[in-house]
Every structure is written in structure tokens, then in C-alpha cells.
């Protein structure tokens, strides 16, 4: 009940801070962009809309996830609203969990709305309901949950600017996990060991954008069937599990803090 109250207030804050209005801008740009650009591509309109749309959801989603995540706890401390909330009969872990759930709900809604806009654009161009696109959207949703959890953990002890830089850094490195592994193999020695350790600790965000990769000797593409259900389930469990561990870390940091 108390966690839900905090989550609801967090969602209300995100909505009233007009963050989600960026969605409208994105949706408009996406529809106009894909419809206009489609005229310049011969028979590839739908393919272009899929690519443009999914990259848009990915980039916008991650940017908003980092922006909301890094500000979430820091703003409570900076604006001193936490002084009014924490003396109430709630535990600090409930506060962090509530903030996180509110954030996750906001981002899930955001990806869902962007996905709906993408689907409408595809329908306008004559495509049907595309399972592969919705699978890709689901994975991108898990991706933003992981990224925002990392940003939230940083915001428990760092400024929004530094938290943003660290979170973006982790996102970029996490997305390039297969490339890093290859580089480590080629370099050998200590670099190989270092990369192997980093890859174990950092999130493998490449799992959530598999289109274009080779999985199990099979070329994966959102223009075909994307990935099977086993992949979807294991990627989802990995993403949620990673997020829970990171949020637990944020709770440990937050529990020890003095609110001066």
C-alpha cells in the first residue's frame, strides 16, 4: 500500500513534469519521418519504418530512462522533500522500491505508447500486426528497465550529471558486449581477463537489441521472425534479475545515508 502510494506519486511527478510529452514529439517525428522517407525508398517503406521506429524507441527510451532515473532520488534530496516523507511510518527500502516501481511503470507506458505509434505507422503503410516488432519492443522495454535501475542506483549517492555520464557509459559498453568480448580475445593476456570480468559485472544490453546479430548460428532480424520464446523468456529474466540486484544495491546505499 505504502509502496504503491510512492509509486503512484512518482508516476504523477513524471507525467506532470511533462517528460512524457517528449513521446508526442517522437511519435509525430516517427510517423512523418517514415511516411515522408518511404517515398524515397523503392519498395522498402515498411522495412525503413521498422528500423527507424525501433531505433527511435531505443534511443528515446534510454535517454528518458537515464534522465528520470538519475533525477529520481537526487531530486528528493536536493529539494528536501525526503525530509517530510522518511519520518513517516515507512522503511527506507519501501521508499526506494516505490520510486523504482513508479519509474518502471512510467517507462513501460512510454514504450507501449511509442510501440503503438510505430504499429499505426506500419498499418498505414500496409503492414499487418507484426509479432517480431512487438517482441523487439518488449526487449527494449526490459532494456530501459535495466538502464533506469542503474541510473537510480547512481542517483542514491551521486549528482545527476555524474550519474548520467556513468549510466550512459554503462549503456554504451553493455550494448557493445559481443564486440568487447571479441576485442578482449584478440588482445589476449590481461586485457582478455579484464574484459571477461567487466562483461560478467556489466549488463549485457546487446541481448535486448538482437536484430542484426547471429544467435546460435542463425542470423536474427526484426524483418524476419526475430527470436524465439526461449530467448525472450531468458532475456527477460536476465534483465529483471539484473535490475533487482542493482535496486537492492541502491537500497543498501540509501539505508546508510544521513539526510543532512
Amino acid at each position, binding site marked *: 500500500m505504502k509502496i504503491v*502510494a510512492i509509486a503512484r506519486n512518482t508516476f504523477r511527478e513524471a507525467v506532470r513534469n511533462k517528460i512524457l510529452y517528449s513521446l508526442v514529439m517522437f511519435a509525430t517525428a516517427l510517423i512523418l519521418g517514415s511516411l515522408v522517407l518511404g517515398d524515397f525508398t523503392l519498395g522498402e517503406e515498411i522495412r525503413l519504418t521498422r528500423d527507424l521506429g525501433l531505433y527511435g524507441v531505443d534511443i528515446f527510451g534510454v535517454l528518458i530512462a537515464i534522465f528520470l532515473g538519475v533525477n529520481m532520488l537526487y531530486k528528493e534530496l536536493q529539494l528536501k522533500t525526503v525530509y517530510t516523507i522518511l*519520518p*513517516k*511510518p515507512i522503511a527506507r527500502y519501501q521508499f526506494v522500491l516505490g520510486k523504482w516501481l513508479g519509474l518502471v511503470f512510467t517507462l513501460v507506458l512510454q514504450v507501449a505508447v511509442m510501440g503503438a505509434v510505430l504499429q499505426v505507422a506500419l498499418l498505414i503503410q500496409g503492414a499487418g500486426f507484426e509479432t517480431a516488432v512487438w517482441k523487439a519492443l518488449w526487449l527494449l522495454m526490459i532494456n530501459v528497465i535495466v538502464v533506469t535501475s542503474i541510473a537510480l542506483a547512481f542517483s542514491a549517492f551521486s549528482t545527476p550529471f555524474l550519474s548520467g555520464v556513468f549510466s550512459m557509459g554503462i549503456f554504451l559498453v553493455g550494448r557493445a558486449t559481443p564486440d568487447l568480448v571479441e576485442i578482449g580475445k584478440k588482445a589476449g593476456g590481461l586485457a582478455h581477463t579484464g574484459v571477461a570480468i567487466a562483461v560478467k559485472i556489466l549488463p549485457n544490453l546487446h541481448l535486448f537489441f538482437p536484430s542484426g546479430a547471429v544467435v546460435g548460428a542463425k542470423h536474427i532480424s526484426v524483418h524476419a521472425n526475430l527470436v524465439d520464446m526461449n530467448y525472450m523468456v531468458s532475456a527477460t529474466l536476465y534483465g529483471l534479475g539484473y535490475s533487482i540486484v542493482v535496486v537492492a544495491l541502491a537500497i543498501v546505499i540509501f539505508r546508510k545515508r544521513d539526510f543532512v
Partner: protein
Amino acid sequence: MSVESVLTAVGLAKTFHLGFFRKKVQAVKDVSFHVKKGEIFGFLGPNGAGKTTTMKILTGLVFQDRGTASVLGRPVGDLHAKQRMGYLPETPYFYEYLTQEEFLDFSGQLAGVAGTVLRKRREELIERVGLGHARGRPLRKFSKGMLQRVGIAQALMGDPDLVILDEPMTGLDPLGRKEVRDLMVALKREGKTVFFSTHILPDVEMICDRVALVVAGRTVSEGPLASLLSAQVIGTEVHLRPSAAGTLPELPNGVDKLVSGGDVRLDLPASVDVDTFLLSAVNAGAHVISVQPRRESLEEYFVQQANKGNAKVAQS
């Protein structure tokens, strides 16, 4: 736990490490006091004395380095104790995108109140703190005084037994201060305990059962006002209207004299024999308007103790 013990602090100490170089700042060095059930307890001290840090320790926002504290017989931070406690922070900040109704509902939900009780209590408190005219208005449009009132209302949403208010008079005009004083007295009548810090000493003299004075991070005194302030007469204020000739008896050394509209106000020290002085004034043709013995005020006591405490800090 003693039945009467509502709030107890014993030997509290807290040092902060601030800035890049982790500079040590000893905010609280040795604070102890004991608040009894059903009383209005004033927590006094000059700026930087450690009052707010002590309050943050008691409300679980800051962890003490040394000492013990209990709230309603339980350790600080205990959820059962927090359930029965309401807190107004100093210069409170709220979620400015919420209306007062939404904020009070949110506060009530966190205090475990729901349904019709929540709505009823919210409406009662809005009226009680005089914000009925601001319904539906977002908090960002509230004045400082209005925010202070919302702050008091949110502290009461859980119908607490103990109300902790950090500088509740800040930002309020004289009428608002009176209303808050009246509210505190009303809370006491309802059987609640009120613990508050303030700089406004006349308010303390008017409503507090007991006070603790903290200077430079240490409690220097605690008790009922009457026991802290000297009962002895430390001077006498005399209001005279001199004769047409304007003659007055010779004034002893060290007497403050204020002339206003033809009248003379004198502050005679305790060493002056007031009867003899008044007799000589009447003999000189003066008319005695009033004679007021002056006892030690809280303000004088406060200044005296603060100076002593600061002198000790300077020596060490």
C-alpha cells in the same frame, strides 16, 4: 519504559564530514533531554546550536555517532513509533506539482490512513490550518506561510500522539503565529505531546510547560520555565509624568531613561531603593503612572546562557 516517557535523548552526538576534504563539523556534541507525555516542550537554542540535527536524529533522517534516543519508548526509526509521530521539518519543501488535497492524501496513505477516514481527516485539517480557500491549487502557488500550514496539516494526517515541529512559526505573520500557538495548545488538550524548536521566545513563554536550551551542540539546561528563570526582581520599570517645571530627583548611576511625549520611563536596577526614589519623585511634583517590577525574562536567560556556551567554545 516509563509511562510518561515520550521522547528521550541521552548524550547524543553527531559529526558531519562535509565537502571534498571531508571537513569535520561537530553539529551535536552532548544533547540530552526528556519529554513527558502530554506536555508542550520547547527546544531552544541560537542558530547553529544543533537543534535541527537533533530533530533529524529523532526522526531517523540522520544517524547519531554516540548516545541513545527513543521515541514513544521505542528506538528511533521503529515503524510503530513513527506510526504515532508527526513531523514538520524546518522550511518544509513539498511536491509542488501536487494540490494540497493530493499531498495530504499522499501523506495520509504513508501514515496508513485510507478510505473515508483519510478524506474526512484531510478536510478537517485543511479547515483547521485555515487553507479552505486554497482548495485545488497546486502547492507551487502557495506562499511560504501557506506551505508552513500545509506542513503542519501533513504532520497531523496520521493523528499522531507526538508532534515534532521544527521552527513551526517560521514564515508566519503575527496572526499565523497565534493560530499555530493556539493549535499547539489545542493538541495538548487532546492529550498529544508537542515538541518544537523556535527562536521566537515570547511564544515559548506563552505556551511551553518545559524547555531545553541547547548551545554549541550541548544541552545547558532543561526544566519548567519557572525553575530556569530567576524569581528575584532584577529591576523596576517606573513610568513618571514630571511636574510642569519638569524637575525629577537626581537619578542614580546606571539608570536607563527614556523620555517620550513628556513622560519619563526609568529602568531602576535592583540596587536602587524604589520606595525612597518614588517618594522623592512625588515630592518633586511628579505623578507616578506605573511601577512594574522586572524579573528575568527568557530572552535574558537565553542570551546569558548562549554567551556562556560560546565563551566555553572559544576557550576550548
